[in-house]
């Protein structure tokens, strides 16, 4: 591990990569603050830039910096405007916004920054410990287990992301997998489902799809409902200091939530949102009675808990991405797509084949967190001025960057029309509460899943690998349980509520 760390330090501390982290964090904070633009949209917009850099370490460092910056920026708009840019920072606004209204915006931002820093840093330490261990286990996996693992990952994402409606999430995942089969596959050199169109020969563009699924619907929602783009003057932010007593009271919260948030982040599909809400709930429950009354009215513990947890969870979500090559969230799925575009395949072999990428990303997490604390925090009063930009100027720019992202990636104007078409479909799907992250994750994993499935079928001359390999069978059973259990438990709960007797 020491050797790896040294390689990582060497790579991450090059001038280019340091600039990437700083630039990424600043851009992320800047755009993440805008209401309605979450980390997924921002990373999708930044991908063409990252890909054109060419060096995978630098690209991933830039994107990871953008990711932390966006989360931090989202917290800022939650605190200052009560307008969370991302679901993961909704819980931050519960206590952050009341603090800002009491004139303690500066203090709230400092607490958020310190909590984010600690959550992210402790998360990075845990990642450093767990990722290599998990990688070693994952090296024993064969294509059959990989296929099964992807099924488990997708089922878990559907089960968690479905907001109680697993069927919809599964359908979206399947749609993503179906879309991934369009074009020429890696194993079979024949075009499939292209309907004779040359533009579909290489399949749908991943950046186009990411933009259409996230950035475009968000921008359209800002147009449809002007109230979403709450606007302010950036607030009067002064007095960023916190007292020693305050630091002492939030320290245990930060410690607990860093660990809890990290492990929730590791689970596929759970991610920062669940981690932040759960962190908030747990801390409220274990607080003393007097402190409990403060929650929701500007409690510093109530602010520190979700902030720590969501940052630790973001770091945790890198574990399945870097060790198994399976993204646990929409954002890490986009990162996976970017890595594949750069000819890097994340997975257990990443640590062996490209250790400099693996370790540089981990080291850049420390640097990124540090930069957010020492560089971004003092700049926040100035960065927050972006909140004063009128929406009549902001929205055309967001749409333009969405278009540019899709265009630069493919250099093809047809791609822009596909973007608009898919964007409309995605908006309609969001109207009906269909989750879109599973679709994108299914799309990105689709190719790999089919390849692993095909390889296992060839090795075992049929589907017998499912029952002949105990680990594959076990994983597929877990996947089935993940899909069936939530629906079953909900049905049972409803039956109980209605007073219907249950048959055993």
């Amino acid at each position, binding site marked *: 591990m020491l050797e790896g760390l040294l390689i990582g330090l060497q790579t991450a501390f090059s001038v280019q990569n340091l600039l990437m982290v700083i630039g990424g964090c600043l851009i992320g904070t800047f755009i993440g603050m805008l209401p309605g633009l979450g980390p997924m949209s921002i990373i999708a917009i930044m991908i063409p830039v990252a890909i054109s850099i060419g060096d995978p370490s630098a690209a991933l460092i830039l994107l990871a910096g953008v990711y932390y910056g966006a989360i931090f920026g989202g917290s800022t708009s939650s605190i200052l405007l009560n307008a969370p840019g991302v679901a993961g920072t909704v819980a931050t606004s519960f206590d952050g916004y009341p603090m800002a209204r009491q004139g303690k915006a500066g203090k709230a931002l400092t607490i958020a920054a310190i909590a984010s820093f600690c959550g992210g840093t402790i998360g990075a330490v845990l990642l450093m410990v767990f990722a290599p261990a998990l990688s070693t286990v994952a090296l024993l996996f064969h294509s059959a287990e990989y296929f099964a693992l992807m099924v488990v990952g997708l089922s878990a994402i559907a089960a968690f992301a479905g907001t109680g409606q697993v069927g919809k999430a599964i359908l979206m995942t399947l749609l993503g997998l179906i879309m991934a089969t369009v074009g020429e596959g890696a194993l079979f050199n024949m075009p499939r489902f292209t309907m004779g169109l040359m533009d579909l020969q290489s399949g749908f563009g991943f950046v186009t799809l990411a933009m259409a699924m996230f950035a475009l619907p968000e921008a359209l929602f800002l147009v449809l*409902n002007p109230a979403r783009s709450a606007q302010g003057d950036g607030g009067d932010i002064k007095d960023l200091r916190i007292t020693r007593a305050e630091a002492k009271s939030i320290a245990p919260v930060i410690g607990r939530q860093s660990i809890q948030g990290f492990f929730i982040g590791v689970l596929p599909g759970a991610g920062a949102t669940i981690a932040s809400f759960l962190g908030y709930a747990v801390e409220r429950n274990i607080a003393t009675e007097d402190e409990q009354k403060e929650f929701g009215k500007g409690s510093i513990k109530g602010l520190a808990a979700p902030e720590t947890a969501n940052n630790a969870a973001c770091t945790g979500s890198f574990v399945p991405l870097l060790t198994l090559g399976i993204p646990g969230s929409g954002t890490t799925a986009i990162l996976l797509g970017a890595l594949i575009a750069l000819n890097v395949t994340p997975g257990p072999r990443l640590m062996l084949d490209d250790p400099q990428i693996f370790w540089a990303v981990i080291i850049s997490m420390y640097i990124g967190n540090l930069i957010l604390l020492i560089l971004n925090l003092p700049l926040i009063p100035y960065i927050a001025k972006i909140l004063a930009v009128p929406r009549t100027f902001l929205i055309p720019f967001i749409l333009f960057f969405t278009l540019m992202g899709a265009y630069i990636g493919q250099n093809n104007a047809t791609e822009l029309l596909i973007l608009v078409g898919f964007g409309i479909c995605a908006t309609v799907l969001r109207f009906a509460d269909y989750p879109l992250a599973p679709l994108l994750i299914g799309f990105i994993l689709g190719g790999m899943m089919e390849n692993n499935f095909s390889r296992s079928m060839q090795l075992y001359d049929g589907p017998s690998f499912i029952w002949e390999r105990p680990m594959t069978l076990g994983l597929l059973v877990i996947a089935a349980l993940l899909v069936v259990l939530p629906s079953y438990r909900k049905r049972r709960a409803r039956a109980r509520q209605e007073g219907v007797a249950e048959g055993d």
Partner: protein
Amino acid sequence: MALDRWIALVLLGVCMAYGYAAWFTMDDSLAPFMQRNPIWPSTFPKVLSALGILTCLVILSGVEKGEAKIGDIDYRRLGDYKIGQAGLLLALMAVYALALRPVGFLVSTSGFLILGSVILGERRWILMIVIAALATGIVWYLVQQVLGIYLRPLPWALGG
């Protein structure tokens, strides 16, 4: 029928068309040596289409009832939102896509940014033109010169 079930119905059609292509049209053109393989290009799509159809039917049948949750935008009150502006912006995006090559990046992008602001109700013309021209110039310079990706700057007729 609620919107989510209408969507499931549409997706059922998509899955059936996809399934038809996978089950009945793909295998005919398969080379004889590939036919002895345990896996065909159509195998995975066949499985996906079957699962897709099944899931659509589950949603349509209402077996899994969710609470009537209102999403970010309540589509039942679509008239209360700025649907006209959104539609015009989408149309503008499509026009931009078609105009980008023939008209060139500088003109089409400035036009897009100005018209986008106009659609959203902005009327400070000079400010709009200055901001659009500046932003277009900066983005073009960054993409073309820094990233090295070619963007035709001027209209076709001017040899851009």
